[in-house]
């Protein structure tokens, strides 16, 4: 039996990374907050660039994947051969594949997604004109659903803790479940029926004749109602989980007043999870925005995209719109993660994104 009796102490960091995560997380992490932020931002920026690059590939592939001869399919059944050829040249489909891709990438880097078949203007300009409308209602909905969802969820969670007031629990489950599960475009249609047709309080669709704010009320309501219910459900469940935690027992052990107990010791921990999931809800919201816009004839990205696909087969516009929607989605998610990082520095270490 050999022994290396040597008291020199080698610098030894946290335990074996191969071990169970619980053991690893118990080890102290000697990282400064600034360092964590730097690593977080670098990682997220790299992730952003990678995702944008993937978006370029996906938007390129959209056209290539059309079965048969894409040019013929795009030009339509009753197009003449010269029209088909024009489409072929416009999309660069006459070139070899690698060159097509190269041209496409160079074009995208210069902000050039090609010229809209239908409107005969740069596709990106069309999309750029529509984007603010979508961002406006999406952002307004984000604020509304976060504030109301968190408030309602937290209130119900606290009131029903430990199975108090079961009737409220049941009422909330059914009510929020109903609102959360009805698709946004159905809610949009119903909102129009009630507030525009029946009560005639608000305009049923976008029109320059009304103010932007006035016509945005119903779209924002249609988008955020379901999200409010989802966020409230998540928050309510998370409140129940957090209230069971050991550190809440510690806080009760300090006999803190209720307000301080819930606002200071419970809420930050609820927010972490609720906001993380809100990122996912936001993604879904952007998706339903595409359809809800169509209901309200809202001149945003959704209407633009849907028209480009369903009516005009306007591929340069589709490419530009998909790219911009993807980019907006990425940016919103990044913003949520930054907010999360400020609220709870631990999330900076997560490998998401």
């Amino acid at each position, binding site marked *: 039996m050999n022994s290396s009796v040597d008291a020199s102490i080698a610098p030894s960091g946290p335990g074996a990374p191969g071990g*169970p*995560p619980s053991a690893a997380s*118990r080890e*102290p*992490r000697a990282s400064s907050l600034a360092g964590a932020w730097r690593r977080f931002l670098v990682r997220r920026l790299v992730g952003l660039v*990678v*995702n944008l690059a*993937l978006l370029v590939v*996906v938007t390129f592939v*959209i056209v290539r994947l059309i*079965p048969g001869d894409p040019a013929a*399919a795009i030009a339509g059944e009753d197009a003449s051969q010269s029209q088909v050829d024009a489409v072929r040249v416009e999309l660069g489909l006459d070139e070899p594949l690698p060159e097509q891709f190269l041209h496409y990438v160079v074009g995208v880097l210069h902000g050039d997604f090609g010229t809209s078949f239908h409107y005969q203007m740069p596709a990106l300009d069309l999309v750029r004109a529509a984007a603010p409308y979508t961002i406006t209602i999406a952002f307004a909905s984000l604020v509304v659903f976060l504030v109301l969802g968190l408030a309602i969820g937290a209130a119900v969670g606290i009131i029903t803790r*430990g*199975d108090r007031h079961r009737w409220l629990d049941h009422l909330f489950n059914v009510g929020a*479940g109903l609102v*959360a*599960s*009805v*698709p946004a*475009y*159905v809610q949009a*249609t*119903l909102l129009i*029926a009630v507030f525009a*047709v029946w009560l005639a309080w608000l305009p*049923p669709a976008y029109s320059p004749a009304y103010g932007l704010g006035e016509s945005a009320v119903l779209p924002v309501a249609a988008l955020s109602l379901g999200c409010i219910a989802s966020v409230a459900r998540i928050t309510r469940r998370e409140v129940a989980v957090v209230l069971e*935690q*050991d*550190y809440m027992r*510690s*806080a009760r*052990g*300090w*006999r*803190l*007043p209720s307000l*301080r107990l819930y606002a*200071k*010791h419970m809420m*930050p*921990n609820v927010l*972490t999870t609720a906001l993380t999931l809100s990122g996912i809800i936001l*993604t*879904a919201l*952007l*998706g*339903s925005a*595409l*359809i809800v816009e*169509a209901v309200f004839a809202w001149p945003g990205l959704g209407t633009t995209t*849907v028209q480009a*696909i*369903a009516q005009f087969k306007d591929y340069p516009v589709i490419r530009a719109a*998909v790219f911009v*929607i*993807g980019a907006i*989605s990425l940016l919103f998610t990044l913003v949520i993660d930054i907010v999360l990082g400020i*609220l709870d*520095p*631990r999330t900076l270490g997560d490998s998401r994104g």
Partner: protein
Amino acid sequence: MLGVLVVVAVVAPLVLHDAATGLSGDANSGSTGAHPLGTDGLGRDMLARTLVATRQTLIAATLSTALAAVLGIGLGVATWLAPRRVREVGLRLIEFWVSYPTLLVAIIVAAVLGQGLGPAVVAIGIANAGGFARLTANLVAGLAAREYVVTARLMGVPPGRIAVRHLIPNMAEPQLILVAQAFAGALVELSGLSFIGLGAQSPAFDWGALLNEGASKIYTNPVLIVGPSVALVFASLAALFVGDGLAAAANPRTNTSRSRLVRRADAAAEPLEADVLLAVDHLTVRHDASGRDLVSDVSLRIRRGEILGIVGESGSGKSVTASVVSKLLAEGLTATAARVELSGADLLGRVPGPELARRVAMVYQDPGTALNPALTLGNQLTDVLTSTLGSSRRDARENLVGHFRDVLLTDPEGRMRQYPHQLSGGMKQRAMIASAMSTRAELLVADEPTTALDVTVQREVLGLIKRMNTTAGTSVLFISHDLGVVRALCDRVLVMKDGRIVETIDDVAHMTTEAVRHPYTRQLLAATPVVHTSRPEVEGADR
């Protein structure tokens, strides 16, 4: 609810096919006796059309959910089976996939495949597969680290068989829940595609297409939207309840009620001696749901300046007893006692928060979870001083920093600004003890405070508790499963088993298998591993 839908889907097309597609004389009719939900532009009955569309909609949603599940689960498992590089790329792509709105992905796929219900089914299927792939990849990553999977791999079980035997059976529940959610999603999204004209094309129709038709005539004939709206709401709710039901079955929530402290009617409490700090008489704690007694008829006394130990194994009721003393009984438990009195305060009645905080402080088993991860140490540990005991913010900080110094935390001011995850377990436990010292409580309740710590750190923490006892005169109720630890620290020891005190040991120093009376104590003593040394300087010690 799902049953109703299935019946409608099967029966309606058989019975109502003609009514749904047959033209009648009155086009664009409102709600009438013959057509309660009106008729469309060609005079087709909306109620019949809605009911007939059920089959189309449900089949499409089922198909696309099945496609999503098969594709996603397959991909998720495949990424695990693949070599490391491929796996990294695969996981990255799945992340990319799910980071976009399902509907956007579906719209892209629809843009490629063209319009129609078939392409829409494929589009939604592909879009939802990302979610399944991610869930599967996450579950597999968690399961693959489980020891039984690692062991199976070491045994030489082929990877394919590990997937079939160990991975897939163990992720059935979350997958089922996701299937229900994805089905609800697919219903909504498919109809959504139809609604904007990318799904079912005339003459085919589903709910989305019908709703679109109705919405376009919302001013002239609003009743047209009722049928498809109600149908969509009904179907989404059905899927939601199925999903919730599955989720509830997977994670049964125990029905708890509030904790209660009840005074026993036959309370004939004898007067206390002057130096008794804590008196508990005939304490019984019942678990409301099962009716089982966790603690039966426990009585104990702690004198001022005394350290009382309670030892027992898991389920002995020692921690529950401690939670009654600290007035933090868990919900769902009912405690009955003739007396629980701490320094003259009747804990069976209402005691104001500040008074309680001044009398009793706690240190818990797992320092990793007992501190709030979202708040700095200074911020959370001074709270009891400022908001409960009314100190000024500055006094509280000075007080706590001083006690951080007492428990030998290096850089006490710096520690105040740190988050719990930046400290080791031993440091966190020292911070908790410092906090307990800062309130100058008369009683410290310490529930297994060293179980999660290394032995050398355990010794330091035990030393701190002992010092708190000797210098500040704090009495201690010390809960532990380790007779060795209790013997080293406590003045008196209670041995608990199955909720009862089986033996009280007053002479802790001479606690040997011969000296103890109860067989369980003897068994516990024999089972407690003790280091045997024959070091010269300790020859002749008591064993």
